[in-house]
């Protein structure tokens, strides 16, 4: 099996991640719910993970990071907790449904949305964001990288714009956390939404949200908080205000191990390797007759994704043949990115997405190139 579906979830994890989950599942109690050693051990692991993520994202106070089950939950918290009727939000066609659907729900309740279009390569022009700012604009929410094309968005520029125009800046880092440098101070990010199971190499069911000090987000959930039991409302103190219910301590122990691995190896070193593999693949297939490749490969930086089609073949069929005949696992279809597909004209055909990891090898990529060549010749 050759796994090229890392934009969906990273399958190759460091052994330390599985070991940490195993150790946690045998040893830790419920976080924040008791003071015996098993419960405190959960607290220690979770606190360590909060601190490590703070280091990775340059967050000064680790209590500003709450754990969630994934980026989708984080984005729902951010959008539903910060967008109110009458408020205007700007987003882009690059977005995943985890941004778009919560926004559409807010729109139905009286919020206003502007969606910035892309050029044919799938890039947005940041001046377009500025020209759409209105008196009632409250927020810009956008992805750091398209999960379909791999195009990167210049979040530093958007962060500067939002700061200058006093707008909230919410970033979906589902594709980039652990892969690209993220600095909430330098990039002026007010709310950062990330998942644990992709670039951070943690287990599924882990993720988080950073909320800048001074910003109060209404929680999606209320319930057990581990404190203030007799209060009728959920305590509004970060991070517990966004962590109702027992946390996924076992998963977070694994996430800690994943982030440790990344910090140990170096974000830049790991990214360089996966980008080299992406480039090897792109160079190997770009001249194939009838191949269509989406996204901007002239950009200085991009994610390790190559989305393609062969002629007019159904992307699902290509993906299935890759899996069945070659044991190469990719992702076909719409990738939960409806507006990006519409912008690229691939709504009907979908696209075959190859997404690479630093755990892949050059030999695997060669086999991928050969498979695409074979299929294109058939």
């Amino acid at each position: 099996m050759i796994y090229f579906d890392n934009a969906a979830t990273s399958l190759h994890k460091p052994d330390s991640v599985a070991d940490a989950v195993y150790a946690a599942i045998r040893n830790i109690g419920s976080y924040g719910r008791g003071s015996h050693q098993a419960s405190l051990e959960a607290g220690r692991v979770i606190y360590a993970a909060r601190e490590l993520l703070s280091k990775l994202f340059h967050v000064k106070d680790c209590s500003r990071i709450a754990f969630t089950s994934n980026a989708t939950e984080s984005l729902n918290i951010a959008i539903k907790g910060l967008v109110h009727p009458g408020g205007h939000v700007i987003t882009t066609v690059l977005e995943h449904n985890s941004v778009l659907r919560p926004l559409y729900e807010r729109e139905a309740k009286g919020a206003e949305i502007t969606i910035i279009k892309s050029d044919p390569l799938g890039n947005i022009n940041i001046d377009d964001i500025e020209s759409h700012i209105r008196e009632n604009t409250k927020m810009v929410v956008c992805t750091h990288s398209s999960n379909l094309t791999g195009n990167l968005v210049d979040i530093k520029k958007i962060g500067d714009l939002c700061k200058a125009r006093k707008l909230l800046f919410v970033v979906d880092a589902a594709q980039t956390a652990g892969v690209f440098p993220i600095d909430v101070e330098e990039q002026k990010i007010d709310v950062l939404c990330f998942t644990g199971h992709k670039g951070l190499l943690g287990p599924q069911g882990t993720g988080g949200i950073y909320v800048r000090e001074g910003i109060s987000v209404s929680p999606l959930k209320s319930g057990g908080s581990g404190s203030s039991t007799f209060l009728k409302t959920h305590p509004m103190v970060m991070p517990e205000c966004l962590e109702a219910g027992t946390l996924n301590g076992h998963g977070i122990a694994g996430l800690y191990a994943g982030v440790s691995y990344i910090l140990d190896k170096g974000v830049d070193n790991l990214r360089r390797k996966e980008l080299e593999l992406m480039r090897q693949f792109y160079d190997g297939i770009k001249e194939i007759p009838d191949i269509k490749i989406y996204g901007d490969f002239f950009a200085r930086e991009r994610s390790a994704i190559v989305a393609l089609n062969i002629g007019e073949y159904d992307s699902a069929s290509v993906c299935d043949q890759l899996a069945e005949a070659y044991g190469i696992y990719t992702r076909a279809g719409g990738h939960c990115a409806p507006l990006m597909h519409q912008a690229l004209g691939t709504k009907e055909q979908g696209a075959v997405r190859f997404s690479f990891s630093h755990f892949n090898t050059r030999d695997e990529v060669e086999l991928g190139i050969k498979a695409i060549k074979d299929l294109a010749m058939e």
Partner: protein
Amino acid sequence: MREKELRLVITFQNTTSAMAMEKLCQEKGLNGRLIPVPRSITAGCGLSWSAVPGARDELKNAMEENNIIYDEIYELEI
């Protein structure tokens, strides 16, 4: 039941601060351990730091130097 003794009890706004306190005190070799918040302080639940009364100044300084936000420092027979 064990006999009551006078203890310093430090309360926090959230569990994260309590965990930060434990880490700090372990690193610096400061006195105390995490205990459930005594019900004479609050009828909720949660963690507090319990230490010998003589450690008050040392603990207070350590929290202030390391930006650990605490609610109150009590002296209680527990």
